[in-house]
């Protein structure tokens, strides 16, 4: 899977560069090599421990050496997690992520498109206000947001997660989209205009298709953040009906108590959807994660 053509999968320009074989001449990069070996161990061992622990029995967990794979691996832990409302939490997470990303992309795109296509003091002010949001730690707003959500009757409703999540994703989204849209050559828009296309048509037929890579990027980046978000669900929802996966992990920990293998199995299961995405679209995903910060 590492051999896919780079031209097809590198959506954002700064990620791409000329392929280089041994970029620094013949001598090997010793420091980098040692460090990367060390880092490999640091990353791989916890991951390895997570995987083998998730297939241990509870007795095995108490008795076996923690680094030796279990002699009698079991999938019971996974079954236990799946039997305890895992699908509902997964669905909640999916609903929250998909709706939030849809709103973010539509709202963010309209905003970014306007900022780029209607330059002027007003749009500039809009952009500056939104960029201010990059510096606001979202934790700092949680008490008022909680109060507002409660007063609006949205407490313990998935909308309570979606709406603030959208808000805090907008600044970076607009920033990325603006940067991308600026690079679309002006004559293309001019040609559309001469053809008599309306502004909507120009946006939908010209700008959207051309900025698809940026849209994908934004969707991935924001989707991952919303999917993994913890604070908003923690404070703005309470019942199992509205529980999303990261929050479910803590409740599984409370439920399974000392059955650590089951807790770890829940950790693995909650990460699987994203890991699957990673396996099938690694380059796209990684490019998406850093695209906004390439400059």
């Amino acid at each position, binding site marked *: 899977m590492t051999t896919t053509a780079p031209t097809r999968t590198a959506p954002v320009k700064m990620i791409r560069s000329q392929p280089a074989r041994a970029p620094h001449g013949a001598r090997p990069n010793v420091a980098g090599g040692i460090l990367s070996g060390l880092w490999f161990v640091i990353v791989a061992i916890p991951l390895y421990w997570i995987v083998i622990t998730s297939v241990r029995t509870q007795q095995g967990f108490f008795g076996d050496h923690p680094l030796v794979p279990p002699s009698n691996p079991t999938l019971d832990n996974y079954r236990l997690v799946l039997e305890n409302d895992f699908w509902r939490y997964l669905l909640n997470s999916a609903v929250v992520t998909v709706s939030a990303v849809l709103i973010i992309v539509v*709202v963010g795109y309209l905003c970014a498109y306007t900022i780029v296509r209607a330059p002027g003091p007003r749009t500039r002010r809009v952009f500056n206000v939104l960029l201010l949001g990059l510096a606001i730690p979202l934790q700092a707003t949680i008490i008022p947001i909680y109060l*507002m959500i409660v007063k609006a009757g949205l407490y313990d409703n998935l909308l309570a997660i979606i709406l603030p999540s959208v808000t805090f994703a907008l600044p970076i989204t607009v920033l990325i989209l603006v940067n991308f849209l600026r690079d679309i050559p002006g004559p293309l828009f001019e040609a559309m205009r001469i053809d008599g296309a309306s502004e909507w048509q120009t946006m939908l037929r010209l700008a959207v298709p051309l900025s698809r890579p940026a849209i994908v990027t934004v969707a991935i980046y924001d989707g991952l953040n919303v999917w993994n978000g913890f604070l908003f669900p923690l*404070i703005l929802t309470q019942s199992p009906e509205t529980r999303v996966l990261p929050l479910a992990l803590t409740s599984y920990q409370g439920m399974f108590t000392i059955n650590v293998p089951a807790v770890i199995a829940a950790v693995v299961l909650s990460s699987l959807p994203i890991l699957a995405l990673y396996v099938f679209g690694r380059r796209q995903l990684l490019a998406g994660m850093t695209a906004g910060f390439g400059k």
Partner: protein
Amino acid sequence: MTAHSERGAGPVRRSGPSVLLTLPALVFFATFAIVPLGAAVWLSFTEWSGLGDPTWVGLDNWRALLTTHDTGHALWLTVQLMVLTWAVQTPVSILLGVFLAGRQRYREILAVVYFVPLLLSSAAIAIAFRNLLDPNFGLFAGPGLAWLNQNWLGDPDRVFVTVAFIIAWQFIPFHTLLYQGGARQVPQSLYEAAAIDGAGRVRQFLAITLPQLRYTIVTSSTLMLVGALTYFDLIYILTQGGPGNATRILPLDMYLTGFTGNQMGLASAIAVVLVVLGMVLSLTISTASGFSRMESQLDGE
């Protein structure tokens, strides 16, 4: 909506789409970011337990913040964590990123593993490490590993470093990715010229790679430093700010004061401090780094 747009103006000065299209984004932003900021300021002058309605108490919370409440400690911890995580992550990320910029196949395979932590939620990472570091049943409880079994999360002198390590474990992949992208943009010709001049590896790295990465360094550092104000999820699950108050950084202090101690007013005052800190930090970095990232992006390329 666009009917009133003027057509046929010059290619530069055309009216384009209506400014109203930015309205949805602004409404979101105003409702869930600007209004809450104002409300936090207002709440910081009230007393509210979470039950009933807030009552105005004037400067009481701010006085408490400066006297009885241990804000200084939380602030100091936050700064320490900021500096420590930056100092650990930056060199490692740069070296790894430059290394992974090479396109050898084995490096690509290494990279597949490197980036996995990036995908896991903070909740998943915290719960996994909590169990992994358990002194009695965790990873290091096995025979032969006793020297590593150090009560990493329970010892107030050690927990801070442990938390910084786990943060690094989670975020170094992201910054590595940034530096990998940056390193791949360094023109190959620079290295070739340097090699002809007989510059060694270290010289090349110091004279070419690092200067060429300066914008990436600024970006990555900004994200790390501002991000340090928001390490909430991980520490909340790992330590709840403990043992004692050894990891009670500002965001956690705010949460515990508000939602566990039921002092929403005092917690709001802490939140205001947090916002001011975030703003000051962003401004300082963008000024100190000699160029404004936001400006440069506004003006395009």
